[in-house]
């Protein structure tokens, strides 16, 4: 069950999306999110959907993995849908029972809201699926580079992110192991009242934390042994360099955002 968490998982590949500079992908993702929130009509959502669908298709990442990644969000999705369906004021009443009404406006709004969230998450997944975490943090470090002048620890932050991402699968595996060990000793995680279940988590969390601290200690020693001493004087194996492909991608991204903005100004 824990293995299903795919957030932050990278699928190595050679597609055009994979080959894009991480900075390009990050900037386009920001543009894409802005565009999503600017989209107000079927037409503009259609444009956005087309953009996303084409990107996903080019990336060659199996659709299955997106669906898997979306599963943990099911609750939020249903919750949003229900809220929007029942609490949107509208005139075209479709069904009315027990004092609650479902209006056409509500349904439409719920649909848009759901689509927006789904597309937002899928777009973000596309970034993390096609970009190695190191490339991603390199990209972030480079984009946030100017902030170093304000004495913000940009390198340290990106290093921390990189290590966190690196250890997600390791710690998930570890949690699985601890859970099995505790189950074998009769701990029941699946039944009982909420409080009991929360209490049952303590024997998982305590060993997990202890092991995480031990790992952190060993990792720090290993990093020191490999001459790590912060970001100063560090070089990179892969220098970030924009290629023709990146400019093309920027072009497509900007055109999409402009299209959505233009459509919006026409009320579409």
């Amino acid at each position: 069950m824990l293995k299903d968490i795919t957030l932050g998982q990278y699928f190595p590949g050679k597609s055009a999306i994979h080959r894009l500079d991480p900075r390009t992908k990050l900037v386009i993702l920001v543009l894409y999110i802005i565009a999503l929130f600017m989209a107000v009509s079927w037409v503009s959502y259609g444009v956005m959907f087309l953009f996303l669908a084409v990107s996903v298709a080019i990336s060659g990442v199996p659709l299955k993995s997106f669906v898997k990644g979306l599963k943990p969000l099911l609750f939020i999705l249903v919750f949003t849908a229900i809220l929007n369906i029942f609490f949107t004021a509208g005139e075209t009443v479709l069904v009315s029972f027990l004092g609650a009404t479902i209006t056409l406006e509500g349904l439409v709004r719920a649909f848009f809201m759901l689509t927006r969230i789904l597309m937002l998450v899928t777009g973000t997944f596309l970034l993390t699926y096609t970009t190695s975490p190191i490339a991603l943090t390199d990209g972030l470090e480079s984009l946030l580079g100017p902030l170093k002048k304000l004495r913000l620890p940009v390198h340290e932050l990106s290093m921390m992110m990189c290590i966190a991402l690196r250890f997600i699968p390791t710690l998930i595996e570890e949690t699985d192991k601890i859970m099995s060990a505790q189950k074998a000793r009769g701990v029941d995680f699946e039944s009982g009242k909420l409080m009991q279940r929360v209490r049952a988590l303590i024997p998982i969390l305590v060993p997990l934390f202890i092991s995480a601290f031990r790992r952190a200690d060993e990792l720090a020693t290993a990093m020191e042994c490999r001459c790590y001493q912060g970001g100063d004087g560090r070089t990179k194996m892969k220098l970030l360099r924009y290629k023709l492909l990146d400019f093309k991608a920027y072009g497509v991204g900007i055109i999409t955002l402009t299209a959505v903005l233009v459509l919006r100004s026409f009320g579409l």
Partner: protein
Amino acid sequence: MSTAISVEHLKYTYPGVDEGADVSVFEDLDLTIEDGSFTAILGPNGCGKSTLAKHFNGILLPSGGCVYIYNMDSKDEEKLMNIRRTVGMVFQNPDNQIVANVVEEDVAFGPENLGVSSPEIRRRVDRALKQVGMYEYREHAPHLLSGGQKQRIAIAGVIAMQPKCIVLDEPTAMLDPRGRREVMETIQNLNRDKGITVVLITHHMDEAALADRVVVLTGGEVVADGTPKEVFSQVDKMHSIGLAAPETVELCSELNKVGFCLPLDKLDPVECAQTLYDFLKV
């Protein structure tokens, strides 16, 4: 031969939780590791093997005495980075020494820290990965690899820094037999082909038997030092400190007890079998 690491009158105490409860590991230890050699350090748990290893690249500093690494004093803070790039370190748990999410990026971590130019890092990473036989996995995620493969990545990460010496602290302790074999072959190749000095800390007799020299450590003192044949033929001594000799030696030693008269220096099973065959034929 010149000296790679020289430990002189090493004294080390771990600071205890309470005052006066300090734990002394070494009182007065002397040890010299020759450049280009393959030395195995053996010993039961808690004999100070790992503590000693951590002195070899300045992770721990002596409480008394000195450790010289290629004539650099480990207490000299200015030389610390130089020492660490000269002596690479590989630890027991491969998971806790891999920093990056892609194999080649992890191997590049060391050279990146040293400020090596990008094309040169690329060359070193490719060379290091080829040396450990993991080149075709360069774009894989480390957590999907086997233990032996992960440990070879960790070794590649160290050799990409082009050290003169590699210290491996029980690198095979968490591996299955196949992983152990892969790692041992890699280590032997590095020593033989690249002339890298290897210090292998282990409690597997058969691994120690592959070295040029075996140093047995117990209670913070060197109790035996010599070629594997010399050290392992002292079967009773090994037993007295809680270690077993390699199985071939144990076999010959047991047979000698019931009246056979076999030499105790056959570490290789094939060699041992031949000796037995010759002996029985007569």
